[in-house]
């Protein structure tokens, strides 16, 4: 059966600083990240012949290519659905390399999100003819509101609590406090501070939300045989998955039989079908965390615990480095490192398998990386 199974490796990673109101343009940030990723693997820009990014990426391939000095591009594409796209861009790049459609592929995401005017939900038009007409007129305006609606139902149905959500926020913050590149590197968070924080959309408070970040990241992929001759330890794309489940509606997924069985479930079915190992063999995870409830929902979807047990799974420091059952978002994730549409999770997965994370899991040889829950999503299994 055709599958990715370690045919392609991530060989280069690059990122800019993370911040609010960075001076560089969004295009400059993209070019800096791509350039750094190429330097990391010592591949000349002229050899790049594939590019993949998000449909929400504002920088066009032509502009990135003309700045970085890329070669003749023979494969370029974009993946939709916002935060659901991250792992899929890497999977698309890996598929293109594995099938010989290109040979050196770069996937990237650049964003200047920190400015208040750049928030997508604030740019809504006044008359809606798309699916948002069923939610926004009633004041359910922002992604946090849309996720809070599912979170309340989830907490009601399964007894998950704010303490469980705090477990998520605190674990990721602890990891960020060990990562000098993280936005929250020098800012510890306590459970009391979490519980006292202002509401954004009840039952979610400020610390259940991801950061708003300016920054860019990129990865370089080549075939496994070439990867072994490059300077960095190769990190293989063992399996990849993408899922738009039947009758799913993006973000306002209230209109099917079981809204709490989100896109993670269908992604997981494909992922574990393709993989030579299962959830019990995953040593470290990078789970998309635009909002804290997405983590327990994803833990359930990817099979780390049973349905309804995602909240309780987070108890006893399960997500925390170094001793948790499943150290998760070991660079701080979207909630405490940076929110670059989840693309920083891919790079932290690579660092874990290179052995270079600031919260390095001992003997990490497999890593799950996921993209947005609650939207058509994607996931990767990496190994070294």
């Amino acid at each position: 059966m055709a599958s990715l199974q370690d045919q392609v490796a991530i060989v280069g990673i690059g990122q800019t600083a993370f911040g609010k109101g960075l001076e560089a343009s969004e295009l400059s940030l993209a070019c800096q990240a791509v350039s750094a990723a190429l330097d990391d693997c010592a591949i000349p820009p002229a050899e790049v012949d594939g590019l993949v990014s998000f449909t929400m990426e504002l920088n066009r391939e032509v502009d990135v290519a003309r700045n970085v000095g890329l070669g003749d591009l023979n494969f370029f594409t974009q993946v939709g659905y916002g935060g659901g796209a991250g792992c899929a861009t890497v999977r698309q790049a890996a598929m293109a390399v594995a099938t010989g459609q290109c040979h050196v592929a770069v996937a990237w995401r650049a964003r200047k999100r920190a400015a208040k005017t750049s928030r997508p939900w604030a740019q809504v038009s006044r008359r809606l003819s798309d699916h948002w007409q069923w939610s926004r007129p009633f004041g359910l305006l922002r992604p946090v509101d849309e996720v809070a609606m599912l979170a309340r139902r989830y907490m009601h149905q399964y007894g998950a609590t704010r303490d469980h959500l705090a477990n998520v926020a605190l674990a990721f913050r602890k990891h960020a406090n060990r990562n000098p590149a993280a936005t929250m590197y020098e800012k510890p968070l306590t459970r009391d501070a979490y519980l006292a924080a202002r509401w954004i959309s009840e039952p979610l408070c400020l610390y259940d939300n991801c950061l708003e970040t300016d920054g860019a990241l990129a990865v370089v992929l080549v075939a496994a045989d070439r990867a072994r001759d490059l300077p960095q330890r190769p990190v293989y794309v063992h399996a990849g998955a993408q899922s738009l489940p039947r009758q799913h509606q993006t973000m306002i997924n209230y209109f099917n039989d079981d809204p709490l069985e989100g896109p993670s479930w269908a992604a997981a079915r494909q992922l574990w079908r393709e993989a030579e190992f299962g959830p019990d063999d995953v040593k470290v995870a990078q789970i998309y965390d635009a909002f804290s409830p997405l983590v327990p929902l994803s833990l359930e979807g990817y099979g780390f615990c049973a349905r309804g047990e995602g909240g309780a799974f987070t108890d006893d420091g399960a997500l925390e480095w170094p001793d948790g059952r499943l150290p998760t978002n070991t660079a701080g994730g979207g909630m405490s490192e940076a929110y670059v549409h989840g693309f920083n999770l891919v790079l932290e997965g690579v660092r874990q398998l290179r052995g270079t994370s600031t919260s390095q899991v001992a003997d990490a040889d497999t890593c799950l990386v996921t993209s947005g829950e609650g939207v058509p999503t994607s996931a990767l299994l990496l190994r070294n």
Partner: protein
Amino acid sequence: METEFVLPDLDSEDTAEFWAGCARGELLVQACGHCGRWRFPPRPMCPHCRSLDQTWEPVSGRATVWSFVVAHPPLLPAYAELAPYPVIVVALDEDPTIRMVGNLVEDATGPINAIDPATIRIGEPVRVVFSPVDDVMLPRWVRDPGQH
């Protein structure tokens, strides 16, 4: 009064009938003209039998609260003025897999922030009302104890 609320386009081909029903004070659920199954939100093709035929079934407007949030700023200005306000999702009595986003209000013309969110319970019964906002009648919900 003209508001700065975000509102539906009343003239979209696939949804105009729903909003026209609201304007008449009728809550309509789209049903397949071939296999009869209900679907919401409205869309042109039945996902069960791919028929383009459709009918619109008036429902009782009775429902229960499936979930709710309480929105706090930052929000669009027209909504920020009313914050904090609850937003609910209801499940229709006739078919609880038909769910609609809405507001819990004291009456059809009441503001969306009048109900104390601390008193809202998942599962509590509600009934539809139609609230005028600019040229739109939005389906909202009032408490309906003992009627279900």
